[in-house]
């Protein structure tokens, strides 16, 4: 094999290849030239009348999990630059600054962006064409109210769907909350449950540990400093939890405080590693459960399991703790040692072939895990976004269970880590009169095959079937064509005006999904709004209250959700009921006063707005997951049927019996490796030989921030491909490539890098879907290639299970 260096360097991409003779790729400058920056947005003239320099506190409200403080500097009512938190004490952990990442620091370009929606618009061309005409707010709200009434009358409120959208995450008194408050007062809408982030893990782990909340069982990452071994399965806080105050900060702090031996299992050599880890174990996507079983084999064979713990706290490890309902040899030990129904012994050799990890390495890892006391074993949530994601999530938690690394200092349950949260009050949204709920990932099915969907086949909740197909979609700050799997299919379904009759999109920017709207409503950015918000869900042990003071006046004709929902309420004759006589600012003050009554430490709203974030730290007690259960399993029995950790899940045994699954899908009471469709072992690899996974790129948050040229320059969108795979296809670093499978084709640049395992490619999710006339996506949107087929148990999104082929354009 030619060394990859040669391969990459012979390419013309020497940065200052001065003449760029004959080279089509001109580096950043050429890319910048193709960016959608039509013109720099002009700021309203009337805003430029203040003639003063101001600094106001705000925060970045996007769905990265973190939340960071921003200080916006304005001159004459125009944002000039952005700084971040400068409060607290850098030398005292917990009072440290919550520093924003590159996305937050480029926020000014999101506010002054040529894609900004300026006034209400209604569709004039065919749906999806993107042709609109300007209308007044009165016309827009009349239209919206008429459509809501029409759908409720003709079909019922359960034909109205409030779609998933996380582009603005963190509003407490506005945005989605304001919209839902209104819809709950006007008859309700079809619910969904779950989310694209934790679609499998949040429903899988409760079968083992017995609760509903995904982070209910996590230990804080502060426990890392008390452990002797840190094993991370796909946990990548450097790229997914980027705030300089939350998980990655805390992670680094713990690792610097005490150098804990760290092993990371990932297909990519991520930015969490970079030598901070002691060892990277590259693994094929979707095979983590096989690795766990190979490890379990060593642990059992070499007597490294904590038998006393398994006997006392767990159900179904061996014959002794197997419930009566289970078949003979239905226990975990039998499954691993080859006496289970499949008769396959899960030896390290067996696991090596599946995972791509050498046998020796598996045995060594097993011994390390078996001997380290305590060990902190954690998983990220990318690995559960697979066709066998529920199995993987439940399998990984077997390692702390088998070794008894649970409920003690320095341990964790194997779940994602816990985060503290300050309970900043929300605008009361009321209850939805419609009870029926669909899995978040099945909304396109609820448009085209609602009549076939049942609780036992499609995971419907609170109903056995649906009364109606979805006939109206209201999307607040979401990018449903872009971020739902199989974009071409989603687009085709939405284009059919006989299916969904009316689509309203409320957003800041003309996103790929906004093009499918019948009615477009321009939202203010949160820098044009007042709010008090809390830390996100990745703040580590910090709990924070963030003030948000409008830095600039609402631009163009933009209105906040609370504002236009109040006007919409008037059209239903419920304005008073909706507002309770309060303006939005008055709601913020009212709710904050309630929070102050509960927490006497909270500063006054004025002080908060002047001095910046209020920081608290999680109490020492409760930082170790399941500590109470470990100390007293009787009093603190888990929410599982047995009250114990269910390695063998009685509820899954029942579900496996009752549910109808498509060919090839399985639900098993034990956590186990399942070979799925479009895995590396699927015969389809003959046609599409490479696995493609997505990842969270640093250059945007999901699809938010994609339209910022400064970010596109800093983090070039390229598909990661190993030099071996690239060389076999004549692809060089920086080449334009096409990636395709039976679901679509996308175009992007190649990043030929040794930082990914051979046979696998990775593409940052969230790039904007830009189909050309032939339907080929020119935008590098990974969902052109992903499948809408759901996972067996949670009916979730397997968006990292894809087989594809790649070639130079």
């Amino acid at each position, binding site marked *: 094999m030619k060394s990859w*260096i040669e391969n990459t360097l012979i390419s013309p991409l020497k940065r200052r290849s001065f003449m760029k003779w004959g080279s089509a790729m001109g580096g950043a400058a050429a890319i910048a030239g193709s960016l959608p920056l039509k013109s720099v947005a002009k700021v309203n003239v009337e805003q430029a009348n203040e003639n003063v320099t101001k600094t106001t506190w705000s925060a970045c409200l996007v769905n990265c999990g973190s939340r960071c403080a921003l200080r916006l500097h304005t001159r004459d009512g125009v944002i000039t630059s952005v700084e971040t938190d400068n409060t607290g004490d850098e030398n005292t952990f917990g009072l440290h600054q919550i520093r924003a990442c590159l996305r937050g*620091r480029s926020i000014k370009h999101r506010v002054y962006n040529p894609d900004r929606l300026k006034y209400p618009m209604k569709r004039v061309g065919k749906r999806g064409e993107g042709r609109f005409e300007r209308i007044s707010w009165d016309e827009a709200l009349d239209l919206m109210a008429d459509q809501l009434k029409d759908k409720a009358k003709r079909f019922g409120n359960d034909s109205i769907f409030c779609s998933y959208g996380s582009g603005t995450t963190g509003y407490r008194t506005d945005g989605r909350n304001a919209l839902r408050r209104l819809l709950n007062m006007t008859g309700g809408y079809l619910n969904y449950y779950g989310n694209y982030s934790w679609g499998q893990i949040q429903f899988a782990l409760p079968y083992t540990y017995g609760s509903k909340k995904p982070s209910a069982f996590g230990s804080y990452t502060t426990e890392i400093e008390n452990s002797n071994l840190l094993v991370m399965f796909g946990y990548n806080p450097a790229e997914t939890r980027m705030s300089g105050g939350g998980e990655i900060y805390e992670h680094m702090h713990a690792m610097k405080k005490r150098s804990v031996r760290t092993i990371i299992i990932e297909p990519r050599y991520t930015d969490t*590693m970079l*030598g901070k880890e002691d060892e990277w174990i590259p693994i094929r996507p979707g095979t983590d459960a096989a690795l766990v079983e190979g490890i379990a084999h060593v642990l059992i064979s070499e007597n490294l399991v904590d038998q006393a713990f398994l006997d006392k706290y767990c159900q179904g490890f061996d014959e002794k703790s197997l419930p009566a309902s289970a078949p003979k040899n239905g226990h975990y030990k039998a499954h691993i040692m080859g006496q289970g129904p499949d008769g396959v012994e899960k030896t390290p050799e067996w696991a090596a072939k599946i995972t791509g990890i*050498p046998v020796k390495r598996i045995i060594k890892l097993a011994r390390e895990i078996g001997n380290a006391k305590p060990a902190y074993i954690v998983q990220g949530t990318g690995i559960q976004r697979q066709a066998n994601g529920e199995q993987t999530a439940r399998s990984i938690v077997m390692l702390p269970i088998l070794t008894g690394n649970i409920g003690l200092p320095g341990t964790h349950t194997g779940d994602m880590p816990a985060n503290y949260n300050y309970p900043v009050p929300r605008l009361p949204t009321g209850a939805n009169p419609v009870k029926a709920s669909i899995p978040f990932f099945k909304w396109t099915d609820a448009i085209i095959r609602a009549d076939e969907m049942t609780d036992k086949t499609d995971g419907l909740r609170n109903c056995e079937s649906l009364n109606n197909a979805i006939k109206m979609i209201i999307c607040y700050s979401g990018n449903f064509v872009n971020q739902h799997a199989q974009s071409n299919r989603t687009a085709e379904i939405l284009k059919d005006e006989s299916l969904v009759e009316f689509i309203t999109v409320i957003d800041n920017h003309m996103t790929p999904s906004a093009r499918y709207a019948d009615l477009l409503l321009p939202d203010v950015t949160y820098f044009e709004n007042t709010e008090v918000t809390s830390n996100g869900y990745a703040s580590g042990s910090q709990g924070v209250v963030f003030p948000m003071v409008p830095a600039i006046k609402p631009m163009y004709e933009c209105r906040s959700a609370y504002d236009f929902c109040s006007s919409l309420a008037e059209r239903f004759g419920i304005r008073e009921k909706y507002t309770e006589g309060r303006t939005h600012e008055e709601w913020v003050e009212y709710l904050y006063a309630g929070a102050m009554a509960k927490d006497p430490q909270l500063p006054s709203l004025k002080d908060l707005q002047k001095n910046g974030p209020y920081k608290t730290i999680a109490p020492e007690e409760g930082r170790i997951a399941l500590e109470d259960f470990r100390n007293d399993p009787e009093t603190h029995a888990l929410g599982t049927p047995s009250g114990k950790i269910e390695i063998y899940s009685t509820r899954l045994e029942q579900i496996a019996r009752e549910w109808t699954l498509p060919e090839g899908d399985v639900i098993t009471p034990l956590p186990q490796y399942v070979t799925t469709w479009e895995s590396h072992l699927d015969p389809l690899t003959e046609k599409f030989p490479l696995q493609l996974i997505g990842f969270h790129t640093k250059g945007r948050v999901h699809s938010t921030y994609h339209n910022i040229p400064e*970010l596109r320059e800093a983090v*070039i969108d390229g598909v990661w491909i190993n030099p071996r795979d690239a060389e076999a296809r004549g692809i060089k670093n920086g080449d334009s490539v096409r990636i395709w499978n039976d679901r679509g084709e996308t175009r992007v640049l190649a990043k030929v890098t040794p930082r990914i395992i051979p046979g696998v490619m990775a593409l940052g999710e969230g790039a904007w879907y830009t189909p050309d006339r032939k339907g080929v996506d020119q935008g590098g949107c990974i969902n052109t290639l992903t499948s809408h087929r759901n996972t067996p148990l949670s009916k979730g999104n397997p968006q990292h299970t894809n087989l594809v082929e790649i070639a130079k354009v």
Partner: protein
Amino acid sequence: MTQLGFYVDTSKCTGCKTCQLSCKDDNQLPVGVNWRRVYEYGGGNWEENNDGTFSQDVFTYYASISCNHCARPACTKACPTGAMHKRPEDGLVLVDESVCVGCRYCEMACPYGAPQYSEEKKHMTKCDGCYDRLAQGLGPICVESCPLRALEFGPIEELRAKYGDRANVAPLPDPTLTHPSVVIGTCRHSRPSGDTTGAILNPTEV
């Protein structure tokens, strides 16, 4: 003169590029001009074993570099106009934007890529150590933005006393060429200047 300089801890840096973007925001830099750049340096090879498993020796680390305000700058020596100069009081290397003709000779001479030509301004621009912020008692915008606290700024002798004086770390050149006022905190993967086992993996991003 107290020479000022940067400390860059590659064992903390995660390559997030917040420094690059905060600098860009504060100094109103357009696309194509980056006073601070984050270089992804890495290499390594993959081998397929007989049983279909893989072995590898991959390494990567990031180096965030702006201007190193060198003790013997190649840019000032090259500059035909004297626009590129070293400030006597603190050794910051600045470009007098009212004098520079935009010949880009400093760009050719500087081995760190610090002088950046502005298509808008038609002359060179570069990291000025945020001297305006320093005058207000603040730190450079990049240092104060770093989420992982991997950057520091101050009298270079103090930084050297605290962190040693390594600057011969790839992808940086041999420091004896220009005597840069920078200290690199190394990580497990650090390779010396002149290393040929790795390469800059993100040439189009810097």
